[in-house]
């Protein structure tokens, strides 16, 4: 349980025993939510099955028991209702954290997100803040039925007024969810569900990086790989494998999908001259297209090859027996690196 440590930190005595803990990404989110709820009584959690069950992925496990039914709400089954009432609660001074059960079920709430959540601050010229966090477990690779493996992040990145982030590991999960909740802007928070059980060392006394920043997760010099969310792990594995071929691949985790912090990407590409983007999502008119468009503009003379993308395909997510082929893997990433280097 991360809770005691976070309590200690809250009590201001963090430097006593800065013991790190091994936690899963799921636990990082759970502990982060708990810390946010302890810190601010206005933080509430709402969604389908987030109460007694603790959510189908147990991300909200134990929260209703400890914070009560008025701070952890098992809502009626309707996503527009979840987002729409969260907005009203935010207008009333609450800081709702909504759980969308699976990626494919965010769409009934799309109208409230695009028409109200994203536009309220601009419409009111800052008079109305709607600090709502919408948590969306996303991506494939878990052998699920239709609508449970999608990557809808680009819809939201294309929506002005929203901020969009995605964590890729337990430590970021712990910090980023707290930072998102603390932000006064509406934030779409994408969680790489196939990585929920990946572990990392958390030092809860450390100082987290700012939320809307990308991060070089592995330095390198031969080529640059940019990715986010569930594909960070895969991409890092590819980079490690490429060492055998003598390639030193730099891997950047975008973390913030909108706004994107592309400074480190430009800097890297200017050094390497080669860029491969990795994402599970269908490529067409997506955020990897945006990265490509921006990089070719900013690093025109540095690029020694076109920006390449390794992604899902422009098809609906296939039956799960095909997903291993649909999803980018180590081989496809390295193939793209080879093509880039050979260009």
């Amino acid at each position, binding site marked *: 349980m991360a809770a005691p440590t976070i309590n200690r930190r809250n009590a201001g005595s963090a430097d006593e025993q800065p013991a790190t803990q091994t936690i899963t990404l799921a636990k990082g989110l759970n502990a982060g939510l708990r810390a946010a709820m302890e810190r601010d009584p206005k933080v509430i959690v709402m969604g389908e099955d987030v109460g007694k069950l603790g959510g189908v992925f147990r991300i909200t496990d134990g929260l209703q028991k400890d914070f009560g039914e008025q701070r952890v709400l098992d809502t009626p089954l309707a996503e*527009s209702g979840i987002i729409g009432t969260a907005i009203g609660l935010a207008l009333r001074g609450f800081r709702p954290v909504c759980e969308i059960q699976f990626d494919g079920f965010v769409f009934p709430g799309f109208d409230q997100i695009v028409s109200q959540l994203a536009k309220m*601050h*601009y419409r009111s010229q800052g008079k109305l803040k709607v600090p709502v966090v919408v948590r969306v477990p996303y991506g494939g690779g878990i052998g699920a039925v239709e609508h449970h493996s999608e990557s809808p992040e680009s819809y939201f990145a294309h929506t002005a*007024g929203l901020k969009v982030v995605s964590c890729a590991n337990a430590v970021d999960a712990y910090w980023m969810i707290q930072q998102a909740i603390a932000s006064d802007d509406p934030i779409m928070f994408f969680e790489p569900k196939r990585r929920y059980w990946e572990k990392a060392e958390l030092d809860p006394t450390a100082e987290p990086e700012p939320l809307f920043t990308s991060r070089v997760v592995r330095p390198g010099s031969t080529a640059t790989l940019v990715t986010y969310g569930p594909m960070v792990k895969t991409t890092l594995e590819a980079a490690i494998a490429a060492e055998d071929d003598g390639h030193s691949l730099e891997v950047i985790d975008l973390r913030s999908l909108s706004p994107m912090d592309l400074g480190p990407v430009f800097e890297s590409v200017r050094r390497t001259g080669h860029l491969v983007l990795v994402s599970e999502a269908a490529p067409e008119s997506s955020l990897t297209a945006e990265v490509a468009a921006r990089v070719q503009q900013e690093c025109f003379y540095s690029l020694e090859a076109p920006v390449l993308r390794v992604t899902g395909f422009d098809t609906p997510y296939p039956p799960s027996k095909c997903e291993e082929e649909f999803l980018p893997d180590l081989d496809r990433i390295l193939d793209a690196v080879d093509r880039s280097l050979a260009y």
Partner: protein
Amino acid sequence: MSSPDSPPPQSEASHEGAPTATAAKPTAEQVIAGLRATSEGGEDLVQLLTPEGERVQHPDFDIDVSAEDLRGLYRDMVLIRRADREANALQRQGQLGIWVPLLGQEAAQIGAGRAMRPQDMAFPSYREHGVAWCCGVDPTELLGIFRGTDHGSWDPRETNFHLYTIVIGNQCLNAAGYAMGQRFDGKVGDSDGEATIVFFGDGATSQGDVHEGMVWAAVYDAPLVFYCQNNQWAISEPLERQTRVPLYQRARGYGFPGIRVDGNDVLACLAVTRWALDECRTGNGPVLIEAFTYRMDAHTTSDDPTRYRLADELEAWKLKDPIERVRVHLVREGMADQGFFDAIQAEANELAVRFRDYCVNMPNPGLERIFEKVYAEESPQVAAQRDQFFAYHASFADGGDH
């Protein structure tokens, strides 16, 4: 209708001589299926003041209204109608891009608005100029939306009047959430409690969000009054395109009260809404009110109702004008003399002048408005686009020659 204190309601909307469309008629099956009483409001209609200005009693929803209160309601209705007509005229003169008239719905809105207590919150649709008025939002603050200078300039936190919501139905969920918050804040449960009221139209009842709002409000016992102004039309679509049965009956399916009130009777609207808000503030919400009224003008200034409804429908409703019946009642009961009516008339004239003046002198927003307040914490991306755009603009000033 020619009383000097209330401007003739059809000054802009008169369609005499215009070609009339065929009246919208429900099919036989639909009538059989249950469409009842939509022309008169039916047996269940709560009324306290008849179209002829006669005060009648109602077993459940009666109120004491002083002469002063009544004169106040009259004043509210006359003034907001005057602002409405002025705005319509301003649109015709090119000063507004569009206007959404409230003509005919003054009683429904003033009755509801005056039922609110200072601690109550309102979520309007886009036609609630009368409710805005009651919440202390100056009519001039509505103009920016329709002139294109802003999306509503009043402060919803200070006025307890949320911004206009244009996407049909959205506000019902936002209001339900707000009302849940009132409950979570411990502000519900006694006669000094808080409540919320949300406004929407007959057409809106078909939207999923309105349904979900009712589900949420019921499940969370939210102190929320659903106030449906059934003005018989959703642009060109008559009520029977949305429902077979009177809309107030919708509440039955959710397990809370639904009441139909004569929406052209300001007293009945006041009484029923006050009751409903009190039910909510004391913890017995939610409540649905259907204010049975009529959109006497076009849907908006862009609309042409002659294409879809008969002029005689309008004529029939003119006889039920919400302002006229109060005027008659005030006169008949000796509650107001000519001096009063003259004073209100003068006040309306002043309001109209000030309103017009304000409108024609509204400054255009600057370039920077495009980029301002997209986020609470500025996005570097938007900032970069702004800076680039400003630099580009500056290049013209510096003699750029496109």
